[in-house]
């Protein structure tokens, strides 16, 4: 098995731990993962509100580069995952747009081809590698660890390609395969506040707080997520929340970090220490 890997800006910055754990896990699984050469910003959602065509072109460049290789592309960042998929659909549905974008790419000496598959690691782990394989690899089961699995919005919406839009379960099943327990709660795909935490803290932080607080209420020791922006909002802003709503003090981990731990990988290799809210207590020295 071989995949291409589109990190996106976050995984090189605030989401570093995500990249570290993601790569570590797939390395341990013996799956070859190659970083897309000279990739550029996916054109992230916020950019859509500056120039739609250009944001398609930006994503288009990455897809054109990816098309040189037959392997599927993994995009761990929800925003990248959405934008790249949205671009493929958009160009597929709108010939006029496609003409413009492919034309522009030509000008840059790139040729856009259809048929690239952009997938999320969750999808790959459950549907390509399989839960049984994961179970086999588990050395230190996360038994007794109560998690609230939080998916965020953009990996199931608007394109619910591999899971349900209102009640996704992929990550729950993965965590259960690692021996952890997942609380039943209704906020799996509610908004974490997105970029509002920075631009309109009053609005953004409230949303983030609701999620952390509900998870706590349901008895979760930690939150697990597949999205770097969610992780950032829910982890880094807990200090700011304290003043306004109260301090949840809830560690927020990437699902790849927990899988890594269960597989017996080293906590530092998985960037566990990079969380603003320390996870050690919750993980009880795992």
């Amino acid at each position: 098995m071989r995949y291409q890997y589109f990190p996106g800006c976050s995984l090189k910055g605030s989401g570093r731990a995500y990249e570290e754990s993601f790569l570590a896990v797939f390395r341990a699984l013996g799956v070859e993962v190659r970083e897309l050469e000279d990739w550029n910003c996916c054109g992230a959602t916020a950019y859509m509100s500056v120039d739609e065509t250009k944001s398609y072109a930006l994503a288009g460049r990455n897809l054109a580069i990816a098309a040189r290789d037959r392997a599927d592309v993994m995009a761990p960042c929800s925003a990248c995952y959405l934008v790249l998929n949205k671009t493929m659909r958009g160009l597929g549905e709108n010939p006029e747009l496609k003409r413009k974008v492919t034309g522009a790419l030509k000008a840059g000496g790139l040729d856009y081809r259809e048929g690239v598959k952009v997938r999320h690691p969750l999808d790959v782990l459950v549907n390509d590698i399989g839960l049984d394989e994961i179970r086999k690899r588990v050395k230190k089961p996360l038994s007794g660890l109560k998690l609230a699995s939080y998916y965020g919005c953009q990996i199931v919406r608007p394109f619910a390609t591999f899971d349900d839009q209102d009640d996704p379960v992929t990550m729950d099943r993965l965590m259960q395969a690692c021996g952890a327990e997942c609380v039943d709660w209704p906020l799996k795909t509610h908004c974490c506040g997105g970029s509002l935490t920075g631009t309109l803290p009053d609005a953004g932080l409230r949303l983030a707080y609701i999620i952390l607080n509900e998870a706590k209420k349901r008895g979760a020791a930690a939150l697990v997520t597949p999205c770097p922006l969610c992780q950032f909002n829910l982890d880094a802003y807990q200090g700011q929340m304290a003043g306004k709503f109260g301090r949840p003090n809830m560690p927020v981990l990437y699902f790849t970090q927990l899988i890594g731990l269960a597989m017996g990988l080293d906590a530092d290799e998985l960037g566990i220490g990079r969380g603003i809210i320390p996870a050690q207590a919750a993980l009880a020295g795992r």
Partner: protein
Amino acid sequence: MPKKDHKTNGLPRVGFYICHCGSNIAGTIDVAAVREYAAGLPGVAVARDYKYMCSDPGQELIASDIEKYGLERIVVSACSPNLHEETFRKAAAKGGLNPFRVQMVNIREHASWVHTDRASATEKAKDLARAAVARVVHHRALERKRVPVDPNVLVVGGGIAGIHAALTLANAGKKVTLVEKEATIGGHMALFDKTFPTLDCAACILTPKMSAVKAHPNIRLWTWSEVEKVEGYVGNYKVTVKRKPRYVNEDLCVGCMECIDACVYKEPKFHDKFNQGLGKRKPVYIDFPQATPKVVLVDPETCLQLKTGKCQKKCASVCDRNAFDFGQKERSEEIQVGSIVLATGFRTYDAKKDKQYGYGRYPGVYTALEVERLVNASGPTSGEIKLRDGREPKAVGIIHCVGSRDEKSNKWCSRVCCMYSLKLAHLIKEHSGAEVYNFYIDMRAPGKAYEEFYDKLLGEGVHFVRGRVAEVTDWAVSPEEEGKLVMRVEDTLAGIVRRIPVDMVVLSTGLEPQADAQEVRRRFNIGCGSEGFFQERHPKLAPVNTFTDGVYIAGACQGPRDIPDTVAQAGAAAAEALALIDAGHVELEPNTSAVAEAECSGCKTCVPLCPYGAVSFDEAKRKAAINEVLCKGCGVCAAACPSGSITQNLFGDDEIFSEIEGVLAK
């Protein structure tokens, strides 16, 4: 004016008539130009145009011209033959010409209504006229075969529609077989407590009709049975019915139900389908006290005797009629009928599909049908509104349009949900005194006394929130929301988003085609619309007829409708069947195929192609033969005959080839 001795150089004398259809045709097609053009076509003795050819004077025109100009063929260029072919055939017959020497040209549905450019539409009309004139020359005089109609009728489905149709027919002295796949008739109506808008109790008006069916000398009631196969044609259908085993002899059981008490299972512990799973039943059971026929049945999935063969069979031993028969097997019976009424009803939308409403996840969420059972005096809680956890709800939210008006599930409005939601709102308030909220998108009360009913509910202090609920959830943002189900909705009339905590949520699920609608319609050779309900022959003018003669549809199998409309439609379907029976015979379309015996090489190519077994191989003559009564006139054999020895009336090679040449010749 052309005279009678007008030269048509040997060709049959053709009369050509083009219709303006007011401005429907004349608006887009230069009628005069087409008439002029047709007048010059070989064989045409007279060409006329007229405002409305289908009107009496229009038809009269044809009849009189036949005599006046010695016409031998008629071409009418007007609307679709599916609409008026019959009309103009009659007109020709009136004038003394064989009705099948008429050909229609469809320049309305196929030209004036679908084109905008006058010139090209007129060109098209000319081409089609030329083709019709060329083809009609080959039309031979034909006779319609008459076959007697079997006066017996099959009614499929024992809901209120089937019941009403069966009774109407039986009262008219016709023998009816009523086939129902469940163990009792009554259908959905038997589940209801009250009916809107009158709030009279469903059982009170339904059960008398049910027993009337059972008691009627002209009705043979086959429940726990399904139609397997339908063969034959209008007036003469052969139907095979599958009779599922009850393990109880229907003729012996009197429904005393002592066997149920006697069952080795002391407590009922199995899923009770009739009560939507809210109650429990034993392996030997009867759906509800007024079930018709009042005969118990045994569920092979749960009965010890049938599963293991090891049971004391207390049920059987207490039955002084010895009605039990654990050896009963499924069997098929064949019946002969002349017409069929399909009243197979609907199913409700599966609320589990709309995850955002948490049905199956939160015990406080119910479907409307479940609530019908809850508020029903003969239901599992004998009419008390108790939640699954035994609590009495203080606040109840009713969500309209679940599985209706939604591109993600069903696009259509299910017509009855608004009204039954009002009804349930009233009953819940009445039974429990709870606060009741109705969440609707648009309030649809378009029936006699319906709006008044809505008005009554407004007066009763039921809350109405205009908005589609986004989510039913159990996360609380405030203490009063704790332990409640919170409904997030925009009160669109106020323009404000609200969170409303309730104890019970009712999902007003929409009406869908039955799960097996597609198989059923194939079995009866009728059509379905794109949404999957049975297709009527004409949405306005033939609402209970189908494209298969002798097969009629009634009730919600044709589309969502309430009880009054269903009953009215059932009556109409029965009337259509009676009309067919009273005619005593049907005339078969003469467009059948025939073998030119001398030219047939007996290659048998045609024999397996006929879906009706109308083509056979005559071993004595060693040639193919066609039974024209069985032949339905598809022409597949004529197309396939490798030596061109099979011809189809009205669609012979000569007719079609000349039509092809006609549309193209210029």
